[in-house]
């Protein structure tokens, strides 16, 4: 059981002074899936993410990761367990080179992060791995660029590479394609597909093209509660979902993005 | 013989801070006058005066002292208010074998634990203030006290010494309260003093603290209520800035007042003329007479070597228009009379700086701490 499902929430609930943002959600994420979380605005998707990553404490309910209850852990802890999130806005270290960005993530496992007496050269051993990761997201040739100077799409790619450096087993992506031009969208979509090999991905996404093309499973939230759950084909036909989320004008359904 | 031909005098004090008015540029003026009156030119002795601001910081002070002695060939340092700086300079002077004649600092350690063959303490010190004010007031009827004490070494010392005197001369201390230093608002402490019903409220603090406590005492009608304030360290400048209205009735001790006699008046007018109208404080007067005496000693000893001059200064009696005849003890303490003064009512004052009524004169031999009580290694 706990090895079929990598992440499991039971009765997870978040209230903000009276207002229920996430309403007793039972979610099971199967290991190896790309699991999409969709829903109308204000449904509670981001909040749900924040609960999973401990940026918010739940009001009620439990989160278990590979059978272990992690409800009470600190953000940094869950990160070290292998649950890593990306932010709705791109998160990079602007005044470091692309390579250093990735290296910063790798460095943690070295366990020398508090050693203020060690020379920087002690980090060079990490460069090879860093370059591999950069290659994976197609940033190999940018490794010495200062990150500020990268265009938006590439920043997202870099962010992904940094995230991968942590060897995450579970990737949490909040609207990974937001604010991207179409070629960026397709690049990142392929990227996600690619990196999901041997990993589990849980993502919030409004872009139906993306969802339909790569999601194995979809959960639809509305007003904090789950209204549908299943493979895309099935869910997208669910009248509740169409009414609450996709909208009636079937023509524009696909066209939403 | 005079080292490299000139007698170089350094006036080091606070030129801009809290003590700028009691010492500051005024002290430099006083020193100049002393050199004049001594007639250095006539006796073709070359005397130079340099001055610096120690900003009341011991480390600034000691750097200045060191450079003065090592680099600028200064022979003697004068004035130096602020005990911390004074003690630092005292020690360096001893190290470098120069001379240090202090006028501005209050700490009686200069002639006690820290006394040195290179140092003379000229004008006043805490013991003398405590003793003068304490005993004299008790004698004149103020026999129950409450202390308002600045909560740091200096305040504690003043309080300790005064309390001793008060009890010794038959008065009693009803209570005391320690106020933060520097303080802004003293009203709550004053209320405590008031409810103690003590006849005398002793202000064991200095500068702004004293001024503010006096102001606020007036405001809360404490002085009107029949209690008297005794300042343990008050200068004429403080009275000046408080104004008679607020300060009237305040009692404290000084060793110099411009209106003592013809000589003091004459000199003070000269001084005021040179010091844009401001009358001399006892510190500035002290600088004048100490420089004068120092030069006489140099002349007599025919050297400006520190210890020798100091020894000479101690050997010969002092005599000058401001402090009259006096002497310097083995421990370096300059001995002269002290005056218990009370601030006049506005009505009684004939004009600016006519501030004091002399309530009592404490003869020189009683004014200062007895030689044997100072724990000064020099006196065995």
């Amino acid at each position: 059981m706990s090895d079929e499902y990598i992440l499991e929430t039971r009765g997870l609930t978040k209230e903000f002074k009276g207002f229920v943002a996430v309403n007793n959600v039972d979610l099971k994420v199967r290991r190896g899936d790309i699991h999409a979380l969709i829903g109308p605005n204000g449904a509670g998707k981001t909040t749900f993410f924040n609960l999973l990553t401990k940026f918010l404490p739940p009001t009620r309910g439990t989160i278990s990761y590979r059978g272990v209850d992690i409800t009470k852990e600190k953000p940094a802890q869950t990160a070290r367990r292998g649950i890593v999130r990306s932010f709705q806005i791109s998160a990079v270290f602007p005044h470091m080179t692309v390579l250093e960005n990735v290296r910063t993530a790798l460095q943690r496992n070295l366990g020398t992060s508090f050693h203020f007496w060690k020379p920087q050269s002690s980090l060079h051993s990490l460069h090879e791995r860093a370059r591999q990761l950069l290659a994976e997201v197609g940033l190999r040739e940018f490794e010495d660029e200062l990150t500020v100077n990268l265009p938006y799409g590439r920043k997202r790619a870099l962010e992904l590479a940094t995230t991968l450096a942590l060897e995450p087993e579970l990737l949490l992506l909040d609207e990974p394609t937001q604010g991207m031009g179409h070629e960026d969208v397709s690049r990142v979509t392929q990227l996600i597909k690619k990196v999901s090999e041997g990993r589990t991905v849980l993502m919030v996404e409004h872009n139906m093209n993306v969802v339909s093309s790569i999601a194995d499973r979809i959960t639809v939230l509305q007003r904090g509660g789950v209204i549908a759950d299943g493979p895309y084909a099935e869910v997208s036909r669910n009248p509740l979902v169409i009414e609450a989320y996709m909208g009636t004008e079937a023509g524009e359904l696909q066209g939403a993005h | 013989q005079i080292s490299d031909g000139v007698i170089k005098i350094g006036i080091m004090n606070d030129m801009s801070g809290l003590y700028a008015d009691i010492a500051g540029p005024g002290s430099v003026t006083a020193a100049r006058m002393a050199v004049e009156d001594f007639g250095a030119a006539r006796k073709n002795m070359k005397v130079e005066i340099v001055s610096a601001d120690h900003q009341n910081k011991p480390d600034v002070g000691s750097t200045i002292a060191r450079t003065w002695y090592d680099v600028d060939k200064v022979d003697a340092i004068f004035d130096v208010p602020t005990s911390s700086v004074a003690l630092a300079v005292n020690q360096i002077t001893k190290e470098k074998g120069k001379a240090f004649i202090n006028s501005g600092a209050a700490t009686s350690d200069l002639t006690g634990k820290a006394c040195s063959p290179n140092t003379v303490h000229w004008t006043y010190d805490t013991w003398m203030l405590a003793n003068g004010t304490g005993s004299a007031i008790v004698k004149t009827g103020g026999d129950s006290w409450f202390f308002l004490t600045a909560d740091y070494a200096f305040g504690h010392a003043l309080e300790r010494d005064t309390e001793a005197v008060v009890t010794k001369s038959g008065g009693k201390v009803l209570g005391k309260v320690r106020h933060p230093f520097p303080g802004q608002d003293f009203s709550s402490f004053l209320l405590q003093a008031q409810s103690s019903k003590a006849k005398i409220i002793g202000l064991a603090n200095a500068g702004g603290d004293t001024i503010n406590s006096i102001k606020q005492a007036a405001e809360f009608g404490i002085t009107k209520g029949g209690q008297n304030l005794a300042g343990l360290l008050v200068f004429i400048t403080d009275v000046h800035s408080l104004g008679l209205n607020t300060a009237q009735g305040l009692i404290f001790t000084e060793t110099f007042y411009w209106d003592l006699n013809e000589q003091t008046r004459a000199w003070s007018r000269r001084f005021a003329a040179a010091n844009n109208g401001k009358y001399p404080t006892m510190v500035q007067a002290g600088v004048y007479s100490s420089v004068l005496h120092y030069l006489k000693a140099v002349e007599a000893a025919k050297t400006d070597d520190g210890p020798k001059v100091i020894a000479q200064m101690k050997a010969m009696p002092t005599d000058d228009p401001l402090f009259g005849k006096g002497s310097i003890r083995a421990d370096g303490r300059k001995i002269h009379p002290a005056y218990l003064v009370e601030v006049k009512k506005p009505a009684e004052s004939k004009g600016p700086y006519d501030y004091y009524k002399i309530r009592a004169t404490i003869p020189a031999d009683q004014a200062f701490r007895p030689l044997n009580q100072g724990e000064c290694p020099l006196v065995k």
Partner: protein
Amino acid sequence: MNHAAASTAATTATPAAGGTMNAQRTAFAVMAVVFALAPLVVYPVFMMKVMCFALFACAFNLLIGQGGLLSFGHAMFLGSAGYISAHSAKVWGLTPELAILAGTATAGVLGVFAGLLAIRRQGIYFAMITLALAQMVFFFCLQAKFTGGEDGIQSVPRGRLFGLVDLSSPWAMYAVVYVVFIAGFLLIWRTVESPFGQVLKAIRENEPRAISLGYDTDRYKLLAFVLSATLAGLAGATKALVFQLASLTDVHWSMSGEVVLMTLLGGLGTLFGPVVGAAVIVTMQNYLAQLGAWVTVVQGAIFVVCVLAFRKGIVGELIAWRDRRKAK
């Protein structure tokens, strides 16, 4: 806002940190030689003062330059360390090296407590909190018995190093201060380049991201703070022996202001800036001593000018100038 601090600091720092290592090496060599030979021409006590403050400023700079945190209360470390080393040398009769050690350690411990409180906020908040904490320490030192209130601890014996070398000779003393300064400087330099330094930079750049990468950022900031405090303490402890006194001056907030001034003038976040800044300010104070209150006016003016027109500071401007030359 903290991030902005970072970028401003970073932009000045990157030229120094990145790329031109050898430039820094030569600069260091020059500095080492200059300080070694200076006492032959300049008054030694003055040079020692410069070195003490230079180390103090470097320690302070470690925090703003790497941590992006501006402390407005660093005097508390300089001062308390001074008091402890003075007290332990005078009253307990410890040998100088032990006295310095004691002082430094105290500053370190104080740093832990102050840090735990201060690092919870950033930017201006941090500045004000450190300032307030320092003020607390000041009042403590003012009232505590052993500090001698405003008299300070006077005539502190310099004693014999390891019970052998008599430090009352200015040369011996100078040698000690020199070694302390160089060692402290090298340690700071290394810290900047170390793995730890990298993490600090990351935190400064984007803290939430650093957290999400699994870094417990507060602990890194705390370590940075404690390091800075300890080194500031080292400077203070040494200074106390040099001047043979410890006084309130070194715990007063105006001292905290001075170290900011030195660093700002020399160049925030640059390696050598604080040293240059300290040298300039100390010299100024020495030669303007006669000017009295004008000293503060001049200092204030320097602040204003630096902030308005000269933000990179002396060294920062030099680096910028060099890079522009390179660019051409």
